[in-house]
């Protein structure tokens, strides 16, 4: 069972190296990829971007246009030549638009892409997942089902046997006037019926009850997940993006993450991921990549 960023790096280093394609890499991406190659985590493949360091032990393909570099990187992943896509230094807008493009993007029919953020807790050696923290603005119930499935697939790659899930909402009661509470209740029922495999899915649950068993007790909420949550599922894009950042800027927590649910995992270049943790982010995506590049 993996409980830390170091554990993620170690596990990825023990697995066969994955081909990581990065369009338009800057010096930061090149340094991370070089280290990933040195540790046997990745076989880097760069398209365009900064000049290759002399003697770099990985593939460089020239490309002047950053947008074309993104397109070529997507083709590499979709063609099976690469297992992981890593965002380079180019404009984030172009990368995210290309990622979600219905024809040329990473999407798979019948599947939903979502971003899973991973945080180590400060007081105990343990990781938590928060999702979706970047991709979907207003996911409906069907999309939330996929978002949760993506997070569970990652949790299982991390060796968590029966993950405990909190489907968050503003309140812990089901209120037809608050759609997030209804979606959470349905996901919880799906979990109860085994639709997510071995997992405990609780919802709706408010953040105080999720974080504190004592708070839950005072509100009369009985649940196996209170104070012991592995995966937090947020109701919408506003909440996901802001919560992911709040944990970093208010909570001084470190984070990494990756996009799952597509042809292959993708690593975003997010300003709230510390430079020192970018290797762990690449390792996470490599760990999530299944045979043939999918995240299975």
């Amino acid at each position, binding site marked *: 069972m993996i409980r830390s960023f170091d554990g993620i790096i170690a596990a990825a280093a023990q697995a066969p190296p994955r081909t990581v394609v990065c369009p338009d890499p800057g010096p930061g991406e090149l340094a991370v990829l070089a280290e990933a190659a040195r540790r046997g985590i990745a076989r880097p493949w760069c398209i365009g971007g900064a000049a290759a360091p002399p003697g770099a032990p990985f593939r460089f393909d020239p490309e002047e246009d950053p947008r074309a570099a993104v397109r070529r990187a997507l083709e590499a992943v979709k063609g099976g030549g690469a297992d992981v896509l890593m965002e380079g230094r180019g*404009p*984030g*807008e*172009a*990368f*995210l*638009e290309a990622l*979600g493009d219905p024809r040329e993007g990473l999407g798979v029919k019948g599947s939903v892409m979502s971003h899973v953020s991973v945080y180590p807790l400060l007081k105990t050696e343990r990781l938590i997942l928060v999702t979706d923290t*970047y*991709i979907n*603005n207003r996911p409906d119930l069907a999309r939330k089902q996929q978002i949760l499935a993506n997070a569970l697939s990652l949790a299982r790659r991390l060796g968590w046997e029966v993950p405990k899930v909190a489907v*968050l*909402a*503003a*309140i812990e*009661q089901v*209120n037809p*006037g*608050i759609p*997030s509470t209804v979606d959470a209740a349905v996901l919880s029922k799906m979990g109860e019926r085994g639709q997510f495999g071995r997992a405990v899915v609780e919802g709706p649950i*408010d*953040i*105080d*009850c999720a*974080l*504190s068993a*004592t*708070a*839950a007790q*005072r*509100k009369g909420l009985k649940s196996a997940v209170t104070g012991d949550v592995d995966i937090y599922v*947020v*109701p*919408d*894009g*506003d*909440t*996901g*993006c*802001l*919560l992911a*950042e*709040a*944990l*970093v*800027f*208010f*909570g*001084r927590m*470190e984070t990494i993450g990756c996009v799952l649910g597509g042809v292959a995992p993708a690593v975003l270049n997010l*300003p*709230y*991921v*510390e*430079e020192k943790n970018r290797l762990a982010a690449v390792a996470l995506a490599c760990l999530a990549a299944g045979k043939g590049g999918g995240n299975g």
Partner: protein
Amino acid sequence: MIRCLGDFERLAREKGPKRMAVLAPEDEEFMLAVKRSWELGYIEPVLVGDGERIVRAAAKVGFDTSPFTLIAAEGHQAISDLGIGMLFDGELPIAGKGQIPTSYIYRSIIRREAKAASGMTVSVVTFWEIPGLDHLVVMTDTGVNINPDLKAKREIVRNAVFVYHLLGFPRPKVAVLSGRRPGGGPMASYDDYLALREAAQAGEFGDCEVVEATSFTEIFLGGRGGRVVKEEIDDGRLPHILLVPCLDTGNIICKLDFFLDVNRSSLVATSRGPVCIPARSDFSDSIVQQIAMCVVLADRMGKEGE
């Protein structure tokens, strides 16, 4: 200027005791808070609810309630209507809830605001006290409006700026938060930011400034081009008021205090005075703090109205 929750406690001792309708203090933790607030000279409680339960809870924390008015009432909505009615009828300057779901309180307030034709949109203002920061941070609306449209957000900003002015800050800074990110498609919360910034510049909310940042990354890093270094995060960059996009976001972020080194206090500023709305999971120390805050704001709102 009021810069921390301790300032409320210091001032509450000077301005109290004020009469406060305490609605359904039927839980030991709440009753303990009422007892301490009385002992500290903040309030003179008027207890509303199930008499037997109230007396039982008081006995458990060693609080003799016999000197105080106890108004017997049954049922969450009836208790709430009674207490909020007393506030709106000017019988007392503060109301506060005990172990009663907040939705009943909101319903009572909304009905009474409508009856009073005040035109006020009811919203919850949550204060965060962050150690080392020289001002409190308000998050709003964290309790009432599920998915506020632009019209409602205008009122929510107006309410928060009004409250922040009461703290003695003449020109609070406001961040209108949004989950918008490059390439992520259109978001109503970002469109609202653009409109609210324009409205603030036109002076629609009184003296305040809507800052050019809609995410914590933009607030703390000054844009999306930088990269965080944990040791260099500067809380001083936080504006005074954070307008959250919707109820889910507000409630989830404001209650991160269960996880973080911050103190939280919430209230509803109605047209007739503050309503204290501690969460049912709050502990007595936090509830006492929230009562102190309401005492001070009731005093200042009273002076505004004079």
